[in-house]
């Protein structure tokens, strides 16, 4: 069963991409994309439910037993990430039906989008290091295509910075894989977990550092985040929403996977470095946000800042901290993608994303104002929204380890996040529109209103639900963290009983 179920989310997304490509010149493409996203989400949900009931699921591609073929693995973390990918994908696919112009559709927007989703899902599901690299490439090329779609000058500039810096990450990642293979002779992650035990820990740690920098670029941590604020404010709103939700999180996921399963030789160095990188990322990111006056630029810098929180959870490496990191990851994807979707509607009805040039959204578009307020305050960590629990757990985890400065930084950054979110609220929503107009959702057609606002509302409801009833989410996150901290179940699931045998 899991042999079929595991690759299903990836396959559905690819199949949707191909179909959408063939129907790109009409409106059919967008509905194919929506239908495919629904199917992918269902597959992902089935996978998660199977993981939650039966434990870690493994599928050996081409029936070549691990570590010789490529293994797909879904532990709790992977399954959760695929579900959240499905949710984000569906929300953005629906939004895109009203957001993406027919010209962009004809250029293959929906196909690129679905390939991106496939790449992200693949990255979450693979249990093979080189295969992970392949998914990174799929994501990179699809995201580059989406980023420059539309072909405006700013997009080109952003695209070049984006692709150059991400290619550097790719080089580091690939070099790391080569070196690690040289030391261990394997690419299967579970197998790596075992084989690195025999290797020179010093050398493995050096290679780990290479991975850390490579993944650090992908996750946009300090001082490697340049590409993100350079790019995210330029593409179509649907594109920046899906980027904001998913791209950097794949980097964080990869880091979480490798630095719990494989690279735990010299935690004092790798995770210690991560800790201070996390703190610096939180601080520089939020200061960047405070300095901006563009809706999407503010949000972009916030991504950086919040990546810091997730990395912090990994760096602390306690059960509570890892649980917090997983919880934060899920919360962040939902909230962040949503805020970018809101910025698109604001741009539509108020005419700009430059918050000094717009205003009056509170008076004229109270529904949108409310739908902004929920994710915005969730992002800022106000209870009873999801962001509060995420922040609380990480602060508690820091204090439990008596890392006073780290906890203080996490809290102070929370304050600065409030400050910079209220900047958007104060200027784009509260302040009257400098043009004297009162922007209103009434300027959109009924169908636009529905397709733009229903995904926003859905994601906002999800934030509220997680905030009000966090218990099941906390439990799943705890389970994910436990699996990460004790990889024995993962290794056994992939490689079978301790003695490995050649398949048939």
């Amino acid at each position, binding site marked *: 069963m899991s042999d079929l179920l595991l690759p299903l989310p990836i396959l559905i997304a690819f199949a949707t991409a191909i179909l959408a490509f063939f129907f790109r010149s009409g409106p059919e493409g967008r509905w194919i994309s929506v239908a495919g996203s629904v199917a992918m989400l269902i597959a992902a949900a089935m996978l998660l439910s199977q993981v939650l009931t039966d434990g870690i699921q493994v599928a050996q591609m081409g029936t070549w037993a691990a570590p010789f073929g490529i293994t797909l693995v879904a532990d709790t973390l992977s399954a959760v990430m695929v579900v959240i990918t499905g949710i984000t994908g569906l929300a953005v696919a629906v939004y895109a039906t009203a957001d993406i112009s027919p010209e962009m559709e004809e250029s293959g927007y929906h196909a690129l989008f679905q390939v991106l989703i496939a790449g992200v899902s693949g990255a979450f599901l693979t249990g093979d290091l080189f295969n992970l690299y*392949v998914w990174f490439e799929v994501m990179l090329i699809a995201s580059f*295509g989406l980023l420059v779609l539309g072909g405006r000058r700013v997009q080109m500039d952003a695209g070049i910075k984006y692709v150059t810096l991400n290619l550097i990450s790719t080089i580091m990642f690939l070099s790391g894989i080569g070196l690690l293979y040289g030391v261990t*002779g394997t690419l299967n992650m579970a197998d790596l977990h075992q084989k690195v035990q025999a290797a020179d820990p010093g050398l493995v740690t050096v290679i780990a550092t290479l991975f850390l*920098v490579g993944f650090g670029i992908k996750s946009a941590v300090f001082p490697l985040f340049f590409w993100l604020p350079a790019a995210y404010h330029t593409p179509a709103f649907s594109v920046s929403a899906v980027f904001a939700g998913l791209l950097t999180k794949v980097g964080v996921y990869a880091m979480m996977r490798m630095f719990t399963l494989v690279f735990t030789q010299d935690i004092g160095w790798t995770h210690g470095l991560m800790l201070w990188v996390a703190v610096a990322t939180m601080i520089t990111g939020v*200061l960047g946000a405070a300095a901006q006056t563009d809706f999407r630029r503010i949000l972009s810098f916030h991504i950086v800042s919040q990546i810091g929180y997730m990395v912090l959870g990994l760096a602390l490496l306690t059960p509570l901290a890892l649980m917090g990191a997983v919880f934060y990851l899920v919360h962040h994807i939902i909230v962040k993608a949503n805020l970018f979707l809101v910025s698109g509607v604001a741009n539509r009805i108020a005419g700009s994303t430059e918050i000094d040039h717009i205003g009056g959204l*509170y008076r004229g578009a109270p529904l949108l104002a409310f739908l902004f307020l929920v994710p915005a305050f969730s992002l800022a960590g106000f209870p009873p929204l999801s962001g509060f629990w995420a922040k609380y757990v990480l602060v*508690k985890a820091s204090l439990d380890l008596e890392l006073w400065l780290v906890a203080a930084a996490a809290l102070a950054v929370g304050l600065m996040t409030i400050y910079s979110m209220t900047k958007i609220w104060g200027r784009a929503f*509260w302040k009257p529109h400098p043009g004297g107009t009162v922007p209103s959702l009434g300027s959109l057609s009924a169908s636009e209103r529905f397709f733009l606002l229903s995904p926003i509302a859905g994601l906002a409801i999800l934030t509220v639900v997680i905030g009000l009833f966090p218990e099941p989410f906390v439990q799943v996150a705890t389970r994910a963290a436990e699996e990460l901290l004790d990889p024995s179940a993962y290794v056994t699931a992939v490689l079978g009983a301790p003695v490995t045998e050649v398949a048939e």
Partner: protein
Amino acid sequence: MADDGTDRRFLGGPAGWISILLPFGLFLWFAQHIPAVAGGAVLRWDVEWIPSLGVTLGILLDGLSLSFALLISGIGALVTLYSASYLGGHPHYVRFVCYLMAFMTGMLGLVLSDNLLALFVFWEVTTVSSYLLIGFNADEAKSRRNALQALVVTGTGGLAFLAGIVLIGTAAGTFSISAIEGSLADHALYLPIFWLVIAGAFSKSAQFPLHFWLPNAMAAPTPVSAYLHSATMVKGGVYLLARMNPSLGGTDLWFWTLAIAGGFTAVFASVLAIRQTDIKQVLAYTTLMALGTLVLFIGVGTDYALEAAMAFLLVHSFYKAALFLMIGVVDHGTGTRDATVLRGLGRAMPVTMLAAMLAAASMAGLPPLFGFVGKEFLYKAALGAPAMIWVTGCIFAASVLMFVAAGIAAWRPFTGPLAETPVEPHEGPWPMLAGPVLLSVLGLAFGLMPDWAEALVAPAATAVAGRPVEVDLYLFKEVNAAFVLSLVTFATGFVLYLLHGRLRSGLARFKPRFDPGWDRLMDGVAAGAAGLTGLIQTGRLRRYIFVTFLALGLSTAVAVWRAGLSPEIPPLDDLEVKHWSVLTFILAGALLTAFTNSRMTAVAALGVVGIGVALVFIIFGAPDVAITQLLVEVLQVVLVAVAMLKLPYLNHEYVKTVRGWDLLLAISIGAMTTVILLAVQAAPLDLELTAFFEEASAPLAFGRNIVNVILVDFRALDTFGEIAVVAVAALGAYALLKGVRRPSP
């Protein structure tokens, strides 16, 4: 404000009715528990919320929480009734009511929660709803600014409080306040816990030096000022101190911090109150005085002090809410709140005057009002307090000035000859009068029958003290020191009232203004953030690449050093001429790339390096890889060279300035890579996979070329992914080229 609306539905329509009935119903529900709680019972209902994080949602009703809950729901009902008239026709009335209800929920949750984390959740709900309510008149820049100020100040305190809660959880092993056993004073974490909780409480309850946001919060509509920023929310910090008194109180640190901050706030605020001309501002500062007094007496912590504090809590809530609502009626009826303008309104606004006079008399501490009872107990407690002189001095000064403020706010506007006002003075509608009248009459009733208040004050003081406290409230028993002090207060207050005009202009010269400092701080934060971001996010790709590689170089260097990696340099004697020549070839290409001033030459030279690498593959017996490498290299040079034609010329001056650094970094990274590679080479290679592929390729996968079998069978998924990459690259290129043909917007 009500005049601009077209909606003249009875009491604001359905939204208004719900907003009035809900708090009223809650008030009745709470009220029915008075007898039980007065009898010493503590009622609780618990629901698990997040067991994994130790968070329980529940209601704990003791004297303290019941007193607060009654004030919140009772004043809430009166304020919403008032608002239905005050804002009933406002286009944003429904939003207003929603915020107010959200606030009430938060405030009730705050005082009823036994679990500290749940308490914090509600604490922040009040912060957010307060933010939205202060900014209610969002068109005005001042409202927006003041809302943000309140949010940032109380938000900062809130975050500190959150850290404090975490530490309390660590120290006490529970987040349930009632389950904390004994005092935490001896715990190693006491000091941080104390300061963090204090930061939360002082910011919320606006104690000096975090007081400045509260008078600014008066930008909110009057019912909000009456409800949030006087009667309930700002007492959240006081509530917290009272609630934590059994666990955190009783130390010298506790006493001196609360006594100094509370006492100073009380006196400082009442001096500033006299200075104001806007009566709403007068009331705002006297609220600060009340908060300071409460903090001071919780700090003193004797039975008398706690009893006095709890009585004063009720006293203040009655008169202050009444006065705030009253000034709203006056503003509504005359168009101004200026104390220097308003005179002689009594004839036109008799009901308002009645409420104002009663409430003001209570504020001035005149018998037979409840305010007199409260003040007597404050004096009595002060005279028996440690640091008696300070406590008594503070409370005496504050009481005298309260007397003056009461005169300014309520006596002067209604007496004397009628003065010209922007609007012909007229009495307010009944929903706006009900609140002030009822509250001020309550002040009289409790003054005449102080025993009534005992039912709440006694269990409240007991809860705060953490031990049974006997409470006996009375209007007059005997002539004692406190009574004499009261008489002196009246006399001094009366004299100062007569002189208050001169006092005000005198004080106007003394300007302890916090707002310019605040604005400078905010500007500084913005400028600092912009400056730092400008340094990091320069917009120059070249710099980004440099920093990225620098980070790589530094971190791997440290890792190599930590690992003590010093691989042996393999003997160079084995190298033959072909090796040396290829090496020279590659090196020459690299040096040329680095030092040429022409882009085109650099690209070509880079191609040389690539071809050199292909040669290496050939020498070591991998012709297929070499062919691939060669192909890619040639294509790359051609394509990049074509693209170069479109690029602007290189800025040679700039290149010169950075070349040295780039070279240094490149060489370091190259050296580092070499060291790592040599170390990896030195390790034995595990051939398990290779062995399997060799063995299984032909019999199981039916292919003799192992590389091919790996690509299309063993690792087919990789190949599938790579095919997708190529397809998408083609799609992307197609889209881009199509975009180029269209004129870009």
